[in-house]
């Protein structure tokens, strides 16, 4: 899963990640790991009482999967920024696809080589669940 960073240039698309259909177990596992006990993500009765057809995904779950997907490819020690903006809600059974494109390659303040990535997580309908950006270090200072 590690990106061959020597080959990565502006315009490179990262190999997309199509996740398995979302399950309530995914939500519960993330909520347990983070400590977010909002019942609208695991209690169907409470979700319906609040006007939703069922429980829905924790937004920070896909943000977290996106972050770990970037870290898998470039190394968690090399991530310098990850930003997300939430769009449409995601629901149990949704198939989310994680995509990234290199939009800039630049030199950081300490001479290190940085890549800026544009990121997108879409539902099976094509609608965005979240959009974001990341910056990763891909090379040590050259001087």
């Amino acid at each position, binding site marked *: 899963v590690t990106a061959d960073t020597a080959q990565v240039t502006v315009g490179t698309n990262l190999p997309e990640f199509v996740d398995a259909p979302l399950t309530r177990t995914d939500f519960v596992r993330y909520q347990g790991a983070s400590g977010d006990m909002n019942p609208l993500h695991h209690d169907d009765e409470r979700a319906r009482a609040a006007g939703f057809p069922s429980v829905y995904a924790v937004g920070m*779950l896909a943000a977290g999967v996106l972050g*770990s997907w970037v*870290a898998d490819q470039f190394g968690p*020690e090399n991530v310098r*920024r*990850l930003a997300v903006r939430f769009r449409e809600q995601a629901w149990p059974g949704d198939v989310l696809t994680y995509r990234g494109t290199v939009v800039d390659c630049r030199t950081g303040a300490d001479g290190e080589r940085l890549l800026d990535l544009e990121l997108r997580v879409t539902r099976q309908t094509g609608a965005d669940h979240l959009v974001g950006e990341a910056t990763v270090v891909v090379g040590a200072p050259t001087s």
Partner: protein
Amino acid sequence: VAEVEVGRRAAPFTVPVERGKVREFARATKARRTSYLTDTHAVAPPTWLAAASFWIEPENHVLGGVFDYSRTLHAGQEYVFPGVPPRAGDTLTGQQRVESVYRKQGRRGGELTFTVLLTEYRDAAGTLVAEVRQTIVETERAAQ
């Protein structure tokens, strides 16, 4: 719509970067690297500090009791790491403040108020290791 004072700070709090919590978070976010499971000082996944925000007391929340949460949505989240992100075994000190407040006209009418909460995390030497920005949007009317 609540008026929030820009610059207002909450009390600092301590965050132990626990190895078990890093491992659990990596699994929950479908990470494939084995370093999270085997390295006693594994670098945490990029959004790991999301977990820290659910373990703090009301006095550590800059908006404790200020917002009408039925009218608020989590609009975005940002993590910035000046160097290598936190590692298992680190102990960080976090402190939250209101960084900015701005308004926009909503697409379906009504003014939206965006509040950006910045939490800075520092190591024992006082070096900034992470900035976390949470953007909250508040509508004039209750969300439908």
